[in-house]
């Protein structure tokens, strides 16, 4: 955070004296049924780090896609360094000095780092001596990269470096970053911030999109806030509280979750995992090694870690999609279920929300009611003697839509018609309303906006208060720190011992995420 104050040297007064780099005027873009951008104005000056804030569906992604030439605006003007421009394609954007690092990386898994970077360069001249230039740039900006590695072997942080180096090779004047830290450890994020500050100091403007308000307050000097396709406010995030930023985003007061819970240390253990080891069924998966933990009634256990350290496998093992070797490896309310599949575990009172909502958490081509039936038919008795009780199913799906504020035309809408955040709300609601005794949730608020995330958090806490044992597997550290009573961290398929949240610092968790042994992490805490 000390570094963050350092960048504050460039105050708003100075910022205004820097030349205007990108000017958007009256940008309007409509999709069938929604106005994604409504007369948006935005100015970005050379060398500034500018935050673009907004809920899901506020129009941020549409706007940056227009700037990067992926989409064409219906109306409005774009000026670059004072000249009016039409950006007809990403290649044209790159020619104008605009680079973009996507949220979901546009990388090719089967190709090498050098090939991936070559694909993002427009001309043969730009691709000359590529390998040596990759090494030079990655060294000078502290972004270590081996040009000959194949992408699927790389961690998410390394993959992001490819995208950044790809942009830097073209000496961009404007770098667009779409949610860059959602997959990084706190240490990796700090390194990224140092790189971005250095770029800004060299005169490159950065347009930074993120949900993480604290991060924006530490990094950015100006913030533009969007809501429902319009720019609603502009402010200096360093002088604005995170709470105020969030309220500007959602246009309403944010209900802070009531965290008055005190789990009973003597409550019965509802979910017990003992020495669970498992070979991954995925191609480049991570095997699980000796995982043990227990969750008591009324308790929330948070499991953190960088994506791809075995969380997916742990989720599959807990839900029964991969069976454990020993029946006793997993016990629900004292019943050994290690060799029992998902349906049997649901019968024992457990519910699950997988990470991937499309195709895993929901069938996209089915209606919400049918999707509700698929997971809740037993616990909510939605079928009788093999026949579907249509009325009860519709009522149940309607209840989920109502209680979890799912924005949809109704329970007969197809799952594919919902936005990602809304579908997530529906899936979480569908499981919570089955009143489970044990709930395992992966990434409960991934891609969900601040208002909806608060509602989901509240529902999870209410469920714990009602006596359920809850496991939350999430990469969002803030979320875990807020919700969980105890936190454990996955690294290389091993789980650190769970410790009470009050005893853990973010730095310690960061070390554990990087695979440090618990002792070393504790030493770091002590120093």
């Amino acid at each position, binding site marked *: 955070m000390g570094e963050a104050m350092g960048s504050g040297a460039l105050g708003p007064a100075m910022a205004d004296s820097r030349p205007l780099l990108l000017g958007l005027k009256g940008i309007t873009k409509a*999709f069938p049924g929604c106005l994604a951008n409504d007369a948006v104005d935005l100015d970005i000056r050379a060398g500034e780090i500018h935050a673009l804030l907004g809920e899901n569906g506020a129009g941020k992604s*549409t706007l940056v*896609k227009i700037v990067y*030439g*992926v*989409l064409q605006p219906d109306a409005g003007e774009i000026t670059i360094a004072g000249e009016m421009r039409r950006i007809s*394609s*990403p*290649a044209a954007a*790159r020619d104008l000095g605009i680079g973009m690092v*996507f949220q979901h*990386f*546009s*990388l*090719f*898994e*089967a*190709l090498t780092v050098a*090939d991936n970077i*070559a*694909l*993002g360069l427009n001309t*043969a001249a730009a*691709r000359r001596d590529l390998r040596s230039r990759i090494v030079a740039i990655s060294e000078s900006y502290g972004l270590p990269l081996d040009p000959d590695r*194949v992408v*699927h072997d790389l961690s998410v942080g390394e993959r992001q470096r490819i995208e950044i180096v790809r942009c830097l090779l073209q000496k961009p004047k404007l770098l667009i970053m779409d949610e860059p830290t959602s997959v990084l450890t706190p240490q990796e994020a700090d390194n990224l911030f140092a790189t971005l500050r250095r770029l800004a100091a060299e005169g490159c403007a950065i347009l930074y999109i993120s949900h993480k308000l604290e991060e924006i307050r530490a990094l950015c000097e100006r913030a533009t806030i969007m809501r429902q396709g319009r720019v609603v406010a502009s402010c200096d995030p360093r002088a604005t509280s995170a709470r105020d930023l969030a309220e500007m985003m959602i246009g309403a007061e944010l209900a802070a979750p009531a965290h008055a819970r005190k789990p009973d240390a003597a409550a019965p253990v509802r979910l017990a995992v003992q020495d669970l080891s498992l070979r991954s069924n995925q*191609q480049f998966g991570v095997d699980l090694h000796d995982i043990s933990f227990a969750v008591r009634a009324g308790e929330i256990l948070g499991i953190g870690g960088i994506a791809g350290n075995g969380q997916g496998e742990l989720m599959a093992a807990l839900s029964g999609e991969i069976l454990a070797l020993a029946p006793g490896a997993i016990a629900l309310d004292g019943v050994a279920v290690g060799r029992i599949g998902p349906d049997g575990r649901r019968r024992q009172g457990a519910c699950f929300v997988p990470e991937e909502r499309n195709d895993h958490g929901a069938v996209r081509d089915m209606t919400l009611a049918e999707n509700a039936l698929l997971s809740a038919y037993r616990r909510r008795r939605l079928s009788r003697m093999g026949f579907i009780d249509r009325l009860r199913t519709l009522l149940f799906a309607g209840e989920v839509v109502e209680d979890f504020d799912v924005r949809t035309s109704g329970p007969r809408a197809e799952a594919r018609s919902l936005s990602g955040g809304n579908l997530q709300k529906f899936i979480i609601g569908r499981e919570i309303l089955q009143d489970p005794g044990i709930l395992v949730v992966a990434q409960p608020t991934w891609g969900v906006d601040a208002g909806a995330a608060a509602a989901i958090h509240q529902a999870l806490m209410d469920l714990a208060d009602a006596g359920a044992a809850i496991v939350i597997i999430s990469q969002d550290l803030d979320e875990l720190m807020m919700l969980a009573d105890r936190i454990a961290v996955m690294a290389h398929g091993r789980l650190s011992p769970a410790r009470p949240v009050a005893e853990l610092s973010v730095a310690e968790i960061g070390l554990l995420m990087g695979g440090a042994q618990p002792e070393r992490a504790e030493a770091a805490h002590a120093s």
Partner: protein
Amino acid sequence: MESAVLVSILLSVIAASTPLLLAGIGELVVERSGVLNLGVEGMMLVGAIAGFAVTYSSGSASLGILAAALGGMAMALVFAFLTLTLQANQVATGLALTIFGIGLAAMMGAGFVGHPVPKLPGLDLPLLSAIPVIGPLVFGQDFLVYFSIAAVIGASWFLYRSHGGLVLRAIGDSHDAAHAIGYPVIRIRYLACLFGGAMSGLAGAYLSLSYTPMWAEDMSAGRGWIALALVVFATWRPGRLLLGAYLFGGITILQFHVQTMGLGIPPQFVSMLPYLATILVLCAISSDATRIRLNAPACLGRPFHAAG
């Protein structure tokens, strides 16, 4: 005497392998771009009759070969329009293309059955072609045999050494990412499909102008399907395709010789050999999933919707 038998066996192996190689290398490039065209058999047959009909009518084998490539491309264009522009299912469209091609070729060829054409001339170099064994094998082949080898080398160079090939592989690996960077996914897939069609057409021309210089209904006899299997066998790599095509051609010829040796094995079992080998090899390859994942185009057969 001994060497004459050997030469004739090796010549027949080359002849049996060449159509597989031509069609296979075309389909390999198509699949590398992420498109699965199961219509190889149909495109081959249309190429075979187009090549035969033009050669028979004009007397020019060169024109015939050109017509065969164009015939295959016309079929591929139909497939590309249906699957890439209209987003039809690739598997169903490919199967339909094969059935359509068999019927179309039979109709076009109805008047040509039983009329022979001169076999494609082989290379005839002074001195070199006269060398025993090596002469006829290396310096006495026809244009399409040399072309098939050149196509493997060319495809390998294109895929792994040129920027265009890198773009093509990238599109097969992730069409969404390629689109986001700004590459024209649909246009490049069209070009790949047309190349695949031309190569299948040439494979057909080899059958009707060189292998057996005549037209017979359904004369490809499943070679299009074997070429498709070979692409998987080769795990989408041109060098291995060359190996696979000659291995398969070798087994096909071996089967004739085993039958004439009179080992007492019923001929039906012996003729199963090539197909049995295909199944065994495919099973062996799919057991090593890592190798498949490293080379298989991840977007194979998936339709591309250009979303914003």
